[in-house]
């Protein structure tokens, strides 16, 4: 696996190179957005880790340009207060985000998740999705929890299906509404919240401690398969 790390902070590059190498990644580093774009065309990385706040060509621009020709998974790095930035980057096609400062373990988990996801999506036709005792049969549109069938409305099923297909990946309100309801509903956050609440009461044992559907405050939701 080849990872491209784009950040203007030399100490972070050094730390990530060491940390990722130790975990079996081949690491390419770029100290600016321009360099990152060049290396992306030369090295064909399997995953890109991208800092949003950089002088010159910033993370958004890199993300936008990368997406014009590549589907490589992108994880953006942002500060805690930058919720709007995170949403913007995710809506531009970034696959996930991490808030600075972050631990290496967290980064590795996110990287695994987006890499697994991108391989999973290629076999989207796979009819069955399993996670713990939750089973989703995409073809027959049947959901069972611990062997018992759960009745979902068509919209709830579509929502669950979309989240399960993009498991472990953060999905913005806009993405969920656009994909499940349609482009004209992208601002109707309340509809989404109501459906998520209903879905949780049906598939979660303790809705206030969700096992599957996690809230990413202000950003969106994440269906987690790992615990």
């Amino acid at each position, binding site marked *: 696996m080849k990872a491209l790390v784009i950040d203007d902070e030399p100490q972070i590059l050094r730390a990530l190179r060491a940390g990722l190498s130790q975990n079996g990644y081949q690491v390419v580093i770029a100290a600016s957005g321009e360099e990152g774009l060049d290396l992306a065309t030369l090295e064909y990385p399997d995953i890109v880790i991208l800092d949003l706040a950089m002088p010159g060509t910033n993370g958004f621009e890199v993300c936008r340009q990368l997406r014009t020709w590549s589907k490589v998974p992108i994880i953006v790095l942002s500060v805690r207060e930058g*919720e709007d930035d995170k949403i913007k980057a995710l809506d531009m096609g970034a696959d996930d985000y991490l808030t600075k400062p972050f631990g290496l373990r967290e980064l590795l988990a996110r990287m695994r998740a987006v890499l697994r996801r991108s391989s999973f999506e290629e076999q989207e036709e796979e009819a069955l999705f399993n996670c713990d005792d939750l089973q989703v049969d995409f073809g027959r549109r049947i959901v069972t929890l611990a062997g018992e069938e759960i009745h979902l409305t068509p919209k709830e099923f579509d929502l669950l299906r979309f989240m399960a297909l993009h498991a472990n990946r953060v999905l913005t309100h806009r993405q969920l509404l656009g994909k499940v309801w349609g482009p004209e509903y992208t601002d109707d956050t*309340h509809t989404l919240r109501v459906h998520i*609440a209903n879905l949780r009461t049906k598939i979660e044992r303790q809705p*206030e*401690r*969700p096992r599957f559907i*996690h*809230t990413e405050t202000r950003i969106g939701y994440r269906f987690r398969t790992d615990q």
Partner: protein
Amino acid sequence: MPGLTPSQRINWQQELLGILIATTAVAVMTGVMYYLRLEQSPSSLPMLYLLVVTLAALFLGRLSAILAAVEAFFALNYYFVEPRYRLAVQQPAEWLSLCMFLLTAIVTSQLLAMQRARAEEAQRSKQETDALAEASWAVASEPDRDRALSKVLEQLASIVPLRSADLLVVDEHGQRHLLAHFGSPEHDRPDAQEYGGPDPVQLVLDERRAIGWDDTRHGDDALSNGPEPAAVYLPVIIEGTVLGVLHLDRNDRQELSQTQRRVIRSLVNYAAVAIQRDKLVQVEARAQALAEADRLKTALLSMVTHDFRSPLTSIKASVGTLLQEGATSDPGTQRALLEGVDQETDRLNRLVGNILDLSRLEAGAWRPKREMISLTEVVGAALDSFDADANARIQVRLDAKIEEIWVDLVQIVQVLRNLLENALKYSEPDQQVILTAVDRHNTIVIDVLDRGPGLPAGEEAKIFEPFYRGPSVTETSVPGIGIGLAICRGLVEAHGGTIGAANRDGGGAVFRVILPVSELSS
């Protein structure tokens, strides 16, 4: 005649009635005297007529009295003086009686009129003194500027008959604000600008001179084309600065008397004082806010030096040990040191986050973006930030009746997280922490209960002050607590809610957050 009040104005109806009554009185008197054959005692006759004339002068006014005098003279001559039933003045004494009648009529009515005028003058001057006293009291006792100004305008209306009065001020951006209004609704008046004349308000502001005020006719061109020829525009000036304009829409075009103008000037000065005082109060408040911000900055600085230095010290020490050549290669020690570094960086990160939040709150820049969100989602998002061990210690009891609440998800999640984090931190690792939420009269009451050491007596409110630290909290034990609760309070108050703390029965503390459930109940 300047200064006439409506009661003094000649009322022809009243005058006609007076004449009628006077004539009747003379006729009746004549009849009575004729019937009683009083011509036999001629000296009493003029006396009785004089009585009628005097009474007419007293009660009916000058014109009626003079008429009564003339009538009395003719009646006396015709009915009682020889040759009777004929008008013929033969003796000079009869002319004397006419003179006497007329003189009595004129002098008596004149005296009376003078006395009445004096009484009215006294009444008016009392009214003016009262108005000034009332206005002065209103300005002195009413802390609210606009209410004080309304009262001043009311007093103005008692001095000059007004359709309406408005007090406008101009702020530093040249924007006009209506501070007080009296009389008919403002929108009933047509806008002077529509009539194409110069804007009288602007004229007053520019020239610092009144319009429609006295006989200099200054600024009349601004009024004559306008909808209110009887309007007056006065500058409100204090210490040489024009604060605004007083606009009076008068009932009539009568010129104002000297006294009226003096009183109006004084009332305008009261208004100026009220406006100026309000400005000073605001300046004072701003100064206080700055002083408070300054205090916070000082507290922040001293906290930064304390709370940042201790983790930095331990990080530096750990790394230094690890870097030292020929140091212990014991993997257990190395790992312990590195874990320490990891924890200390987390601590620093939390500290930075809290300080940032606090500064955003202090700047008022963090307005809640509220939406209807299910309570479960809010609580779930808060619990999600704790690891499995911490979650095992948190019991949650939610009122099933509450479905959605109207909150900013991020902010209320942070409030719950801070409260839960404190509760976990301050109680023993084997103790449970309880989170409950119940619906009460359209509010949601959220309690976080722990079995920690509780709160120092009398400090229950102080703990929400920024940078507060309980006396029992040592420097190294729990950092940043002083900020966390201040942030909670700021966020809850931004939601229109309240937060409080108390000691729990049986030991420990309970933190209570009360939030409005919906848009309507807030």
